[in-house]
């Protein structure tokens, strides 16, 4: 296993408070909410696991060299397991869901197109496939259809909601203010990133 301190990016002499702060920041970064339905969700999950383990190792070590096993107090443990699971009554849809989760979008798409009757779940799954492919506009359209057909379904509404509210995701420290505050002249100056200084 990697050195837990280097995983969290702090030195061995860091105070408990610093360790906790570093851990919190990383947990915020790799939080599963930032990677919902993202094709890289598994990588984020791995990172999350790594930092959870590192944090637990440090807290244990500091609590007394392993004699007394303290429960990890501040750890966001178990986040990775919090996968919301929805099930389908239709066996084809259940298979499509599994294929999407396994990343086999081509087969999922083919299977879905063989279904004759298009209901809310069909559009929802179609939207999920589009989203995974990066076809965000079609994902949005399909989720909208799904919600129209079954307005009471929370899963579909959540998916549509996510599409409508971008910008809530993780930003590293220092990038929390977006460019909205800049006026036009600054835009001109800033984007001339090489010439402005007169060195080129």
């Amino acid at each position, binding site marked *: 296993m990697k050195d837990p301190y280097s995983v969290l990016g702090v030195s061995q002499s860091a105070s408990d408070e610093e360790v906790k702060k570093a851990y919190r920041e990383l947990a915020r970064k790799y939080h599963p909410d*930032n990677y919902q339905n993202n094709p*890289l969700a598994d990588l984020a999950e791995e990172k999350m696991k790594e930092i959870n383990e590192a944090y637990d190792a440090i807290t244990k070590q500091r609590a007394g060299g392993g004699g007394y096993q303290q429960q990890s107090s501040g750890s966001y443990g178990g986040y990775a397991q919090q996968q919301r699971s929805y099930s389908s009554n239709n066996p084809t849809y259940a298979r499509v869901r599994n294929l999407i989760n396994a990343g086999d979008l081509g087969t999922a798409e083919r299977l879905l197109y063989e279904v004759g009757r298009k209901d809310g779940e069909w559009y929802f799954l179609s939207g999920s496939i589009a989203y995974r492919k990066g076809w965000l*506009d079609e994902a949005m359209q399909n989720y909208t259809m799904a919600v129209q057909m079954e307005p009471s379904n929370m899963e579909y509404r959540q998916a549509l909601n996510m599409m409508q509210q*971008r910008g809530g995701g993780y930003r590293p420290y220092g990038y929390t203010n977006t460019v909205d505050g800049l006026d036009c002249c600054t835009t001109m*100056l800033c*984007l001339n990133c090489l*010439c402005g200084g007169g060195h080129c």
Partner: protein
Amino acid sequence: MFGYVRPLRQELKCRDFDLYRATYCGLCRCLRRRYGPVAPMFLNFDFTFLALLLWQPEETFTPCRGRCHANPLVQKPMCPDSPALELAADESIILAWWKLRDSVRDEKFWEGMSAQALSGLLYPAYRKAAGLRPEFDRAVRDSLEELTALETEQCASLDRTADTFARLLRSAAPASDPRSRVLEQLLYHLGRWIYLIDARDDLSEDREADRYNPVAARYGPEGDDPALKLTLDHSLELMGAALQLGDFGCRTPVLENVVYLGLPLVQRAVFDGSWAQIKKQKIWRNGQ
């Protein structure tokens, strides 16, 4: 390519700005060394970003000095040659050539002539680059062919047309890189974003010339800025999420600056029309 991918300079630390400029100058030198004196003409910001992105993670950066192509009397800090820089140089030549071929076919007579002349100049360089990177060459050719077919049939799907260019850019990442999944996702959405922002930028021009435009085909002749912004912001968001999962060493701050600040600002400038002015003073003056 297009010059849309830039950092926001005022938010860069001095050392990150130096790193950016040294990479830009290093790419220029790399182009000249590999492809002769014409090649630096095709130097641009987009491929500087690509070089920074593909560079193997390093803790620190030490520039060396090199003679400037535009002014040989001056020595400038430049990044040393590296596989990432060479890849970015080769790929920029390949893409520039195919784009020129596209213009030869699409443009009116005189513009077509100048593109023809340029592509004649570039041909030997292209031959060499295509020999070095046959997969990328094939990917670019196939994607652009597909794109032409979609444009001919007036495709109304925003995603389908953008997907061709997105896949093109995705293939710029070397498969051997341990970060390849992260890079591919990031480059896919960068390609999607570039294609769509370029389409939005051309919207009125295409309307007047009665040309196909993917944004007009999807939202109508006037476009729909709020809807387009939503989907573009989402691509930027996914780029940021991918960026956080890769190890980019000392290049992380520059890359974050481009993704979180530079691209959104360019996007805003394209939407409010101020980009037209910024664009005029772009690459050529810098590249000399």
